[in-house]
C-alpha cells in the first residue's frame, strides 16, 4: 500500500519533466508565424488548423494586426509570412507576394431596402455624397447613411480603386474598423449602405447587383462581377520549409476547397490567377 503510493508520487516529477521537455521542444521548433490583415486572418486560421491536423508535429500561429503590420513584421523578420488584403505599395515591392485566393467586395444594404441593384456610377455618386437620399434612386424618402472602412484598410483601398477611382469617399460616411462592424451597422439601419467581403454577407444584409450583375461566385469566376481583389501571402524572399509547405497546401485543391467553402472565390484553373513566387 505504502509502496504503491510511493510509486504514484514518483510519477509527478517525471510528468513534470516530460511536460517541460514538451514545452521546450515546442519553443525550440518555434513554428511558423503568420501575421497581418484581419480580413485574411479567419481564413488563414481555418487553413492552419486543417494543416496542423495532417502535420501534427508542426505549429502555425496566425495573428491579426492589419495588412501593414503584417508586411512590416515580414520585413523585420518578426514573422515568416505576412497576410495582406491590399496590393503591395511601391515601397514594399522588394517582398514576394503570392495571391492565395480572391475575395469579392459586395455593396450591401438592409434587407428591407426595395432597391435590387445600382450602377457603378450610382455607387460612386452615393459614396461621394452626390446622391444623399434614397428617393433620388427610386427608393424610400430617407437620407442615405454611408458606412465605410477606415483609411488604410485593404477593403477600403480596393473599393476606392475599383469603384471610386479618383473621387473621394465622403467624409460624412460613418467609419467602422471591421467587416463585421459594417455588417452590424447596415443590418441595424434601414437607410444604410456599406461594403464588405462577399464571404461575410449573411441573411441580415443584402448584396446589391452592380450594373445588373449579381455578386455570385459564378459571375466572379467568369470575370463579370468586377469588384474582386486578391488575398496575398507576403514573404521576405521565396518561401522555404514550413512556409513553402503551408503555401503549397493552401494552393492545393484541398486548401482552395476549404477557402471556397468559407465564401471566397478560387480563380483556378484560370491561368493568370496563380502567379508563382519568384524562385
Amino acid at each position: 500500500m505504502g509502496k504503491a503510493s510511493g510509486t504514484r508520487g514518483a510519477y509527478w516529477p517525471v510528468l513534470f519533466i516530460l511536460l517541460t521537455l514538451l514545452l521546450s521542444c515546442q519553443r525550440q521548433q518555434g513554428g511558423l508565424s503568420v501575421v497581418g490583415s484581419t480580413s485574411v486572418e479567419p481564413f488563414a486560421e481555418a487553413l492552419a488548423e486543417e494543416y496542423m491536423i495532417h502535420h501534427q508535429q508542426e505549429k502555425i500561429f496566425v495573428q491579426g494586426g492589419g495588412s501593414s503590420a503584417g508586411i512590416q513584421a515580414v520585413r523585420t523578420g518578426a514573422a515568416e509570412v505576412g497576410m495582406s488584403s491590399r496590393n503591395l505599395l511601391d515601397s514594399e515591392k522588394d517582398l514576394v507576394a503570392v495571391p492565395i485566393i480572391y475575395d469579392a467586395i459586395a455593396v450591401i444594404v438592409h434587407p428591407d431596402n426595395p432597391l435590387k441593384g445600382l450602377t457603378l456610377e450610382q455607387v460612386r455618386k452615393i459614396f461621394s455624397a452626390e446622391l444623399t437620399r434614397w428617393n433620388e434612386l427610386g427608393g424610400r424618402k430617407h437620407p442615405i447613411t454611408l458606412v465605410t472602412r477606415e483609411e488604410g484598410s485593404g477593403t477600403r483601398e480596393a473599393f476606392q480603386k475599383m469603384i471610386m477611382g479618383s473621387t473621394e469617399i465622403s467624409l460624412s460616411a460613418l467609419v467602422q474598423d471591421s467587416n463585421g462592424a459594417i455588417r452590424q451597422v447596415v443590418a441595424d439601419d434601414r437607410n444604410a449602405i456599406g461594403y464588405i467581403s462577399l464571404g461575410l454577407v449573411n441573411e441580415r444584409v443584402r448584396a446589391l447587383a452592380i450594373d445588373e450583375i449579381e455578386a455570385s461566385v459564378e459571375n466572379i469566376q467568369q470575370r463579370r462581377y468586377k469588384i474582386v481583389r486578391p488575398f496575398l501571402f507576403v514573404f521576405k524572399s521565396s518561401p522555404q520549409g514550413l512556409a513553402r509547405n503551408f503555401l503549397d497546401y493552401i494552393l492545393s485543391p484541398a486548401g482552395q476547397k476549404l477557402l471556397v467553402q468559407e465564401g471566397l472565390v478560387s480563380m483556378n484553373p484560370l491561368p493568370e490567377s496563380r502567379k508563382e513566387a519568384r524562385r
Partner: protein
Amino acid sequence: MFREKVLEKSFLLIALSSISILALIAFFIFQQGIPLMWKVGPNSFLLGDRWFPSKESFGIFPMIVGSFWVTLGSLVVGVPLGVACAIFLCELTPPAIAMVLRPMIQLLAAIPSVIYGFWGLIVLVPIIRDSLGGPGLSILAGSLVLGIMILPTIISIAEDSLRALPRSYKEGALSLGATHWQTIWRVLLPAARSGIASSVILGMGRAIGETMAMIMILGNAAQMPHSILDSARTLTTNIGIEMGYASGDHRQALFATGVVLFFIIMALNSLALFLSRRRRA
C-alpha cells in the same frame, strides 16, 4: 545605517524607473509625431479639415472639434448627476444607505469600457435613430454613455471634497437659522468648489481619453459635426480605428494626433493639480 541607505536608493531607483518609462513613451510619441507635423505644417495639421491620409491630406481639426463636443456633452450629462449624487451621499442619505450606494458607484468604474460601448450600441443607438433620426451613432449617444462613465470619478472626488470641509461651516450655517438645503447650496458647495472643479477636470480627462466605447458609438465619420445627431470622430478614436493598417506618413500622423492629445491631457491634469493645491492652501 548602511542597509537603510541601500533600501532608500533602491526605492529611488524604482520610482525613477516608472517615471523614465513615462518619459520614454513621451519621447517616442514626439519623435514619431513631430516630424510629420512639421512636414505638413502645424497650421494645416491642426486646422485642416480634410483627413485623407492616402492622399497625403492630414487635417485633424474635425477630430479636435469632435473631442470637444463629446467631452462637453459628457460633462453636461455627468457633472449635474455626479455632483447631485455626491451631495446626496454626503448630506442627505442615512449612512447605512450610503454604505450600500458607495460601492455600487465604485463598481461603475470597474465595468470595462467595451461593455459601455456595447450597451450604447445595442440599446441607446437604436432609440436615438428611431426617435430623433440620423444614423444613431452620434455625439448624443457618445455623450450619454461617456457621461455615465465619468460619474464615479466626479462623485468620489466631489464627495471627498465635501467631506473634507470643517464641521463648523455646517454647524455655523445651521445655527444661524439656514435650512439644510440653504446650507448645502450657499455654504457647503461654494466652500468645496475647488475640489468639485478638480473632480470635473479629472472627469474631463477621462472623457477625452476614452477610446473603445467611443469607437463603437460615435460612428467615427471624420467630418466636422453640425449637430449632436451627427457622427463624429475624436482624437483618440482617430488613433484607435486607423492604427491597424496605417504605415509610413499615415502612422506618423496618428502619433502626431497623440502629441496633440498629450498636450491637451497634460494641460487638464496641470489644471486639476493647480486647483487641488489651491484647495489645500
